[in-house]
């Protein structure tokens, strides 16, 4: 018996890896075809991506990017684990980063106090913004998909209104960029100096901690168990005494709080202010990465790294005479292939399992009849 479970687990692991591999291979094939169709050499493009992507300065860049993407992926994944589509991560993180930047610019307390305050403020803002969608869902039955899309646009309007010279924004010297008051240098987050390769943002530590907390809470606590139960069957969850409504609201709020962290690496380690060119649309990147990583803490990390790698290397392709817009095609194909591959692999695994169980039952039955015949 023990042997059997071991074998199934190994098979499940294989099947688990098969899907993303299948997707990446498919994406490679499609990309090759696309590049060939434009009459250029795909081989040189791939080798350029590989050599450039593994250079040390690229690696630092990719890790920095992946820090942001990882947080976005986790924020989305928390919702996904209980069948909630938090499309509003995008608005949540932008509003959170904006409010936190305003607070950070106004604070005059020492850094050891200011940084936690900024981070907590961002998490609270994200949580509050997500809570609107959560409360509307449990109290009024509004689909979170639609309400979060609306909240994204409302967040954009609020930021546009407040981020104006004379309100909470100020014009820079060139007169092109409106931004919030910059953070004092005491409020900068620490970073690792890697010499000529550039600075590795210290926020990567926070991202790792968030990943560990995500794994622990979902996989090792009562709360996480309840959350996953609600995701798989609401009726089963409520039958076992879980308040489904409370779980929906809570997980939406947690998802929003993590979403609030997304803008922090950029704010505390890089830009130190919120301007109208603050990165947007990372919430949607987070959806893609959560799908890619199958909501698994390590899977999401791999997805985030892959996204950072693709972004870095396709940008460089421009210098080799290729079009950097190929990035969107690769990313789109990967996500589409991944979701299809997961489904195909899931079906295949289920069929194998059914066959195995069927074979076992048949063997048992055969053995039983044999015994009867003997007796």
């Amino acid at each position: 018996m023990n042997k059997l479970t071991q074998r199934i687990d190994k098979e499940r692991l294989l099947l688990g890896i098969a899907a993303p591999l299948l997707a990446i291979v498919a994406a490679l094939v499609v990309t090759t075809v696309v590049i060939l169709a434009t009459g250029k050499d795909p081989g040189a493009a791939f080798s350029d991506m590989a050599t450039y992507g593994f250079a040390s300065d690229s690696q630092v860049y990719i890790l920095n990017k992946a820090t942001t993407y990882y947080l976005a992926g986790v924020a989305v994944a928390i919702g996904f684990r209980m069948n909630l589509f938090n499309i509003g991560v995008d608005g949540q993180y932008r509003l959170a980063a904006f409010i936190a930047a305003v607070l950070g610019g106004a604070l005059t307390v020492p850094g050891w106090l200011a940084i936690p305050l900024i981070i907590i403020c961002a998490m609270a803002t994200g949580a509050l913004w997500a809570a609107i969608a959560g409360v509307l869902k449990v109290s009024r039955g509004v689909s979170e998909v639609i309400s979060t899309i609306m909240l994204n646009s409302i967040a954009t309007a609020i930021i546009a209104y407040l981020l104006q010279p004379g309100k909470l924004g100020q014009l820079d010297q060139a007169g092109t960029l409106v931004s919030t008051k910059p953070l004092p240098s005491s409020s900068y987050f620490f970073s690792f100096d890697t010499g000529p390769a550039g600075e590795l943002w210290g926020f990567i530590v926070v991202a790792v901690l968030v990943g560990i907390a995500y794994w622990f809470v979902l996989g090792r606590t009562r709360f996480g168990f309840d959350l996953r139960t609600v995701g798989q069957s609401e009726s089963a969850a409520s039958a076992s005494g879980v308040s489904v409504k409370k779980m929906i609201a809570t997980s939406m709020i947690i998802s929003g709080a993590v979403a609030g962290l997304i803008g922090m690496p950029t704010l505390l380690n890089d830009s130190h202010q919120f301007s109208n060119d603050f990165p947007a649309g990372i919430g949607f990147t987070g959806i893609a990465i959560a799908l890619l990583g199958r909501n698994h803490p390590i899977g999401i990390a791999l997805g985030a790294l892959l996204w950072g790698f693709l972004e870095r290397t396709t940008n460089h392709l421009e210098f080799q005479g290729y079009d950097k817009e190929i990035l969107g095609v690769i990313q789109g194909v990967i996500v589409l292939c991944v979701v299809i591959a997961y489904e195909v692999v899931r079906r295949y695994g289920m069929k194998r399992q059914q066959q195995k169980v069927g074979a076992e039952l048949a063997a048992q039955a055969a053995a039983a009849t044999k015994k009867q015949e003997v007796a």
Partner: protein
Amino acid sequence: MTATMTDAPPPAAPKAEGAPRRSGRSLGMTLMIVAGALLLLAAVRMITGANQLDSAGQVGAALGLAVPIGLAGLAGLWSERAGVVNIGLEGMMILGTFGAGWVGWQTSPWLGLLCGIGFGVLGGLVHAVATVTFGVDHIVSGVAVNLLALGATQYLAKLFFAEGEASEAGGNPKQSPPAESLPHVTVPGLSDALASVEKHHWFLVSDLAGIVGGLITNLSVVTIIAVLLFIGSWWLLWRTPFGLRLRSCGENPTAAESLGVDVYRYKYAAVAVSGGLAGLGGAFLALVTSHTYLEGQTGGRGYIGLAAMIFGNWRPGGLAMGAGLFGYSDALQLRNGGVTVHALLLLLVVLLALLAGWKLYKKALLQGVISAVMAVLVLVWYLLTDEVPSDFVGATPYVVTLLVLSLSAQRLRMPKADGMRYRKGQGK
């Protein structure tokens, strides 16, 4: 639904719903509501003096902005009635804008329109393959379609519009060269007459003239096509055997299967039509609203269309109303919106006060009090300011959608098997 209810229906079940009661309201009621709304609008216009509220220009602009949203919503209606949630509408619209811009500038805009539809259908087929054949979660697949459409069009636009002949004609990586315009229709004589009536700002008469004038002046042919598509979709989905079967796939595919309906084929057809309609919506943006394909032209209208459809309770009439609402508030932003939206605040006060009175009459104390407090707050806002900031004007449709959905979501009823995975021969 509890188990006892399905297992043992009471023999003399009361006939709750009589045969002719279809969409809830009779024609007379609807007309009464429309008339009441008109009176209210006219009164608010007279009190506030915001003549833009229902001028022909405002109504015309609203109609132009409502069409792409309405087409996206209609696209959503087709696919969701067949049980496939289509959040990939945005991507299909993007494909439509690209197709229309690409063929439109090289040949005639009519071919561009067709190409936009064709590209939309392609996007729809990708979504159908993922959701129907492979059983991928519908929202997941929709998000993937959006990503892929955006990436593909950006790449193709760089290839097709940035070099050679196209770039000489005014194209660049984010924009196609301009296409010729599609014809516009104005009812001769009547338009001018209505415009002169409107200028007098008479109570109710000018309001009517403004609205009707806006609807018949300088009307794009594609708008007329869109209206016909709305009527055609309603007829096809609710008045023909084909429509009944298609909707049965969205309500209970297993039952449909047991009656011999090829559920897969119907779902494929519905999602392909859905893609085509979304593509047409995109083509409208590229060829009528502007004359080029522009990156980011859709601006989330696919999502808004979806919201309009939910707002309209998965019915064409309600969807058209929702699209009109979005178009109207979009138009406000373009045309001196701050003052007009400020006038609309007063309308909101009246509506909230009415709601409060109704709820109190119904003895729903808490809701009544909340509505009353909201009414007072909005009234204070109205009295203390002269204008609503333009950034908030842009957010009006989103806030209105949230409000309407939170007030009415419980009365909405989506197709029962909407978004569910269906496998042939595996129904219980």
